């Protein structure tokens, strides 16, 4: 098997691996939202509620409860 052919197979299997990863990620997103562990849609509010003194949607303050997200 020549180098070019080997590269071809490597590319195919890497693509396959990345496809599995991507679909796994989709499942992860929907599952964790269904189980109530995360609420991704509320993150959309970061853009429209972006005053410097408005409460963060997900606070970086370690004491905040929101930090568990």
């Amino acid at each position: 098997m020549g180098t070019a052919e080997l590269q071809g197979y490597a590319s195919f299997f890497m693509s396959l691996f990345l496809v599995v990863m991507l679909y796994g990620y989709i499942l992860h997103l929907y599952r964790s939202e269904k189980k109530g562990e995360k609420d991704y849609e509320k993150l959309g509010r970061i853009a429209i509620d972006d005053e410097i003194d408005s409460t963060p949607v997900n606070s970086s303050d370690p004491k905040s409860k929101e930090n568990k997200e």
Partner: protein
Amino acid sequence: MQSNASLEYDYSVAKLFTYTTILFGFLGMLIGTLIASQLAFPELNYMFGEYGTFSRLRPLHTNIVIFGFTLSGVFATFYYVGQRVLKVSMAESPFLMTIGKIHFWLYFVGALVGVITLAMGFSASKEYAELEWPIDVVIVIVWVLWGVSIFGLIGIRREKALYISLWYYIACFLGIAMLYLFNNMEVPTYFVAGGIGSVMHSVSMYSGTNDALVQWWYGHNAVAFGFTVPIVAMVYYYLPKESGQAVYSYKLSLLSFWGLMFVYLWAGSHHLLWSTVPDWMQTMGSIFSVVLILPSWGSAINMLLTMKGEWNQLTENPLIKFMVLASTFYMLSTLEGPIQAIKSVNAIAHFTDWIPGHVHDGTLGWVSFMIMAALFHMAPRMFKREIFSKKLMETQFWLQTTAVVLYFTSMWIAGITQGMMWRAVDEYGNLMYSFIDTVTVLHPYYAIRALAGLLYLTGFVMFAYNMYKTITASKRLEEEPQFRSPMAA
């Protein structure tokens, strides 16, 4: 970071990059219009001696619109959006403020030197990577400074979650860093040859097919990470903010992001179809280009659905019009690209005018429209004045939309005509047309393209004037508008 009651976002760096966006936008589009006219009327090549020829001006046009106009727009919007979605002001960190200012000034000087050296004829002779090695070094430093700003701001943020726009800005930063470094690996010949020749001159470290592969891996992904990723970052922030509607589906934005990251880097070899690169690599480039429709349309449809139930804003607010049209052109462009990447279509399309036609419905319709809309949105917030004229903005919109349509339709017809004429053979298998036959047939379409360029440039001058008057003479605002940007009739 204790109390932030009196704290305000600091837009000093964003303002500086706003000015250069307008400056380089005008310069790049002016040269673009000139070279489009030169293709229709060749005598225009002889106006400024060696400095006015098509071959000297074309790299100037591409480099100024990519590294001058677009990158300035990316930096301006980052220094604005970055602070707001992280809920942290640059004024809180003297270090980041200093880095931001050095970032701007080094960028500006580097860009000016780049323009001058290209005009003088210094060129590395690789498309979109023509800048010679000393300027490449400056660009790398500028890029590292931007990285310090991005990750520095993230480091002091209040908002824990990184909004989707930031993901895209980070992808732009990492993607271009990798591409630029690898494609610009070059040997300065003066030092290797022991003081012979020009200090500026260099040769690529790669050769032959490998050089072509690295070049188009770079060339295509410069479009991906320079013209797509940061512009998606903009639309994900500015459309929701201007319309007051949160993005339709945040999950879809995440999926589209990873889909785009996964697929885009593999599509570059579609620039080398029917060439000497391995056949599997060409096929891979074609397939990945077609798959690319999914994440691209994922983002564009997400944007259009963000306007669900609020389509009345399209008629009331010209800024929404700009952004919706930009998203629509993004859809058109990302459907057209994959079609051109299909091997059989590419056999006709390659090397024809359909390719610049495709590039320009993306850059004029998507990239420029989005950048101008972003600057219009930021102006009342940064300068605390309402937008000078809604009427002027409306006129600009229709003038430039007409220009884009004229540009791509003329190039579609020209490109396909050209491709068919090059392939046509008589019953004995002889070519039916010589090159000059195609030039004669294409002349009217080249003239239409030049007219389109002139219309778009006129629209850009209107934009620049509207921005200038907004900054200097428009009515002052008492408080920052929450969503819709205020504008005088």
